[in-house]
Each structure stands twice: as structure tokens, then as C-alpha cells.
């Protein structure tokens, strides 16, 4: 289970970082969302992974650490608000700047090819 869990978190982080490094705002927002999913999963695992252990005393012989679950809940709420904000900001950026590039202007592709051609 640990291997599966860790690979899930790893793949999510990989995808998240890859998408955050893209030049358009939409992939960046998706990347941020994936990254925060990965972070939430990771935070959850800080209380150790286990089967059949309730987080409430008295329901099972052993009990799970309830604190990471509380932390994850807080992180989900905050992450949700932040994602909503960045989505709105990206839309406004698209409207204000006329394109969805994170720098607000599209790189001049022809120009790049020219300089490369000279090199």
C-alpha cells in the first residue's frame, strides 16, 4: 500500500510541476490543482497509513492519528479558495491582456526562429 500511495503522490507532483511550468494560464491552474491534491494526500500520510483504524477513540482496538485528517481538511478548504481566486484572476488576465500567456504577451515566434537561423 505504501508503494502505491507514494507512487500516486509522486505522479501527481510530477504532473503538477510539469503543468505549472507551462506558459498558458489554464495548464498552470490545472497544475496547481494537481499539486495541491498531491500535497493533501501527502499531508494525510503524515499520520501513517493503516487499515481498520478509526480516528475516534473506542471504535477500534487501535486508533488512527486524527490530527493529519484535520490538517488535510483545513488545507483542502484553503486550497479550494485559492484555486477559485486564481481561476478568476486568470480569466481577468485573459480579458485584460488579450491572451492567456502567463507573461501577458505571446512570445514572438517568428523572431525566435530568425535568431536561431542566424545562430
Amino acid at each position, binding site marked *: 500500500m505504501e508503494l502505491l500511495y507514494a507512487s500516486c503522490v509522486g505522479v501527481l507532483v510530477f504532473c503538477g510541476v510539469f503543468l*505549472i511550468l507551462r506558459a498558458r*494560464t489554464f495548464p*498552470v491552474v490545472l497544475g*496547481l490543482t494537481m*499539486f*495541491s491534491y498531491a*500535497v*493533501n494526500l*501527502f*499531508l494525510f*500520510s*503524515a*499520520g*501513517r497509513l493503516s487499515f481498520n483504524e478509526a480516528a475516534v477513540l473506542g471504535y477500534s482496538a487501535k486508533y488512527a492519528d486524527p*490530527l*493529519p485528517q484535520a*490538517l488535510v481538511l*483545513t*488545507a483542502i478548504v*484553503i*486550497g479550494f*479558495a*485559492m484555486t477559485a*481566486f*486564481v481561476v478568476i*484572476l*486568470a480569466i*481577468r*488576465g485573459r480579458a*485584460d*491582456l488579450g491572451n492567456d500567456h*502567463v*507573461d*501577458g504577451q505571446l512570445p514572438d515566434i517568428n523572431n525566435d526562429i530568425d535568431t536561431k537561423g542566424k545562430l
Partner: protein
Amino acid sequence: MNQHLIFLPVLIPMLAGVLLLMPPFGKSKSNRRIASVVLSTVTFLVSLALLFQVHENGIQVYALGDWSAPFGIVLVADPLSTLLVSLTTLLGVVCILYACAGDDEKGSFFHSLVHFLILGVNGAFLTGDAFNLFVFFEVLLIASYSLLMHGGDKKNTRAALHYVIMNLVGSAVFLIALGILYGVLGTLNMADMAQKVALLQGDDVYLAKAGGLLLLVVFALKGALLPLHLWLPNTYATAMPVVAALFAIMTKVGVYSMMRVYTLIFGEEAGELSHIAQSWLWWLALATIVMGTIGVLASKNLGKLVANLVIVSVGTLVALVAVQTVEASAAAIYYLVHSTLVTAALFMLAGLIAEQREDVADCIAAGPPVLQPKLLGFCFLIAGIAVIGMPPLSGFIGKVWLLKATLSAEYGMVFWPLYLLASLAILVAVTKAGSTVFWHYRSELTAEVAKQKSIHPAQIVALIMLTVAAPLLSVFAGPLSEYAIGAANQLHDFNSNISMILAGDL
């Protein structure tokens, strides 16, 4: 002595922020302004009361919901955190006053957002719990995102997009770091963490080290330390001057968190993990000073110039944090107060000058003369002298003190020449900016234009309140430096911190 006083600097701004959205204040502009100024003044007075209470009775701990540490969340009021809370609330009062001249009407909900920002900053200063620190960081960040967009144009949207994305990644890294630290230490109370770090063995040591250094990445991002400082100049220069002045405290939150985490948790007593971040902090801080100074020299307008001065001040503060002696911390505390107030004053000045010079705005180039050359020029002179660090103002005292604190051979060899050269460069840049802006006219002032551009009295009061801080900080340097030494002693006193915080309610 009132034990609930500790919570009030967090509670009042929160209630104020909500209250200002309610009908009696939400509808009427003048009501909202009066209420906002009054509420921020009340917060400031409460913070001062807390400051005196802590000064008299020593460090105080407040267990939220009476869940005692390390199980519940505690707020810790020690001399350092209360000093910074008072500084924040003072800055809040001044910025709200300044905004009442008309800046608050350029967008929605300005006053509420400022109160929420103060809530976040005060909470981050007072909290004794690492996860709670994250929560307060998010509170202050989301308020700052909206304030950054306040009354903004297209350039602003771009800067805000960068700032928000950077900080969202930073928050995610913060959570990873906290997850790792909780996983190995089993606690998030900073005092308890400090105790447990020393007991770690085997692989856990390396995990905790990874967590601790990930925290460094986060604080470096918030505080604008070298590789992660690139967001700052654009963000601060495109924000409205009053917002930028208020943001002067935000980089300090990052520096303060470094002070706490790397002095208390990973400090002297942390066994194998003591001083893990010190060498990183030291060299990055020096590089930050160099980059900030280059930025100051290259700045084409006043806003950018002041933003780069903020970077230099962050570099200086982090260098002092890296030295990790009581004297260096005391110098850092004094310098922190000084640099926050002076850079805030300079941001406001840059804004006022920009308003008066038509299309030249705050570019460092010949343009129409400013309307009140005596007032603005004199304020610029005082703030400039303070920020450069020339006698007799507060910058000089701070500079002498921090040079003395880094005198020992291993630090002084690098720090002294570098810092003094940086000061010289800042002297050149600020002098050039001041003389160009105030003395190089391109056209004469016409009476008609002069009528439109006069400064609102509220702005003058706010500007003077910040500008007189520099002379006052040097007049009262005696008591202030004693206070700073006391605060630094408390910060470095590992055993008393631990025993006070973990003893629960007092």
C-alpha cells in the same frame, strides 16, 4: 493584567473587517472611513497595551479554547512578537488614513481587506503553532492578492498573476514541509517541536532536515530572499502606493518566521540539526544584498527603487538572522522596525510625487515640478537619509549596530566591505533620484494645474507620521535598543521559552 488581551490584536481586525461590510458602513463612504480609522486605532492601542503588559510581566501564552499546549493551538506574546504586532497595527492606521484621501474608492472593499491583512499578519506574529502559522499566512496572502489588484490596470493583472502563482506553489511547499515535520516529530507546536528535534535518531534526522530546509524555501519566497525575490520589484511597483506601503511589513513576516524557526526549533539545542539553515541563510542574504543594490542602481522609477531597497533590507535582516547571536538578533529587531517604517514612507512619497508629475509620474527623469517641493522634498530628505544610513537618523544607528554585531572575523571579513559598498551605491542612487526629481524641471507649474494636484490633508498627516518615525527612532534609540536586547535575549533563551509555552495557561 488581562490574559485575553493577547487574542485581541487578531480578533479586532477580524470583526472590523466583517463589520465594515455591514450596511451602516458598507453603504456610506464617510461612515466606512470613520469606522475604519477608529477600529484600526483601537487595534493599535490594544497592541500597545499588550506590548506594555508583556514588557512588565514577561512572555505570555494564551491557549485557544483552553486546550493546553502541545495539544491545542497557543498564541505566544513575547517581546519580539508584540513589538511587531504594534508595528503592523501602526502601519495599518497610517495606511488607512492615507487611503481615506480617495485611494479607497478606486476599487471595492479596501478597508475590509486591510483589516483582514492586519489580522493575518498579527496572527502570524503571535501564533506558537506551525500549522496555524500556515493558516495565518494564507489569510494575509488572500487579502494581499485582492489589495494588489485594488484599483489596478493591465500591468497590475500581470504582476498579480505572477505573485499569486508563486505564492500558491509556496503554500503547497509549506504544507509538504509541515507534513514531513509532523510525520517525524508528531507535533506542530513550535516549542514542542524544538524539544523533540533534539531527540531524533537515525533516518528521521534526515527527514526533519528536509522538512526544515523546505520551510526555508517557503520563508525565502515570502521574505524575497535571493533566488525567489524576482516577484517583488514588479509586484510592489505596480501596486498602489498605499498598498505597497502596507506590504512593507509582509516581507518581514518571512524574516520573522525564519528567526523563530531557525533560532527556536533548529537553533542551539537541536542536537544534530542545530543551525541547519545557517550557511544557506548567510550566503543567500549576502547575494540578496548584492542583487538588491544592483536593482537600486538600475531602477528607472521611484517605485522600483524603493522596492529594491526593500530587497536590500531583507538581505541585511537575513544576514543578521544567520549570525544567530543575541546581539545580531537585537540589531535585526531594531533594523526591522526602522526599515519597515522608512520604506513605507518612501512608497507613499513615490506615490505622491507620481501624482503630481503628470505623465512623467515617478520616473527618475526631468519633468514638471512637484507642487509642494518643501514638504515632499523635506520628507524625501529625511526618509532618504534614514534609508541610506547616514547620521543622525535611525538608519545610521541600525547600521552601526549591525556592523558591530557582525564584527567577529568569520563574518566581518565578508559582510563589512560588501555592506558598506552597498550603502555607498544606495547613497548614490537615492541622491541622484532625489536631485533629479526635485531639482530638474522641464516646465513651470501653472496655477490651474496646481489647483488640481494638491495633496489631501489626510495624506500629509499619514506621510508625516511615517517620516517622523526616523528621527523618533534615533531620539528614543536608548529605550528601544534596550527593548530590542531584551526581546533578543528572550528569543534565544531556549529553556525559558519551552517551559513557559508548554506550561499551558499562566
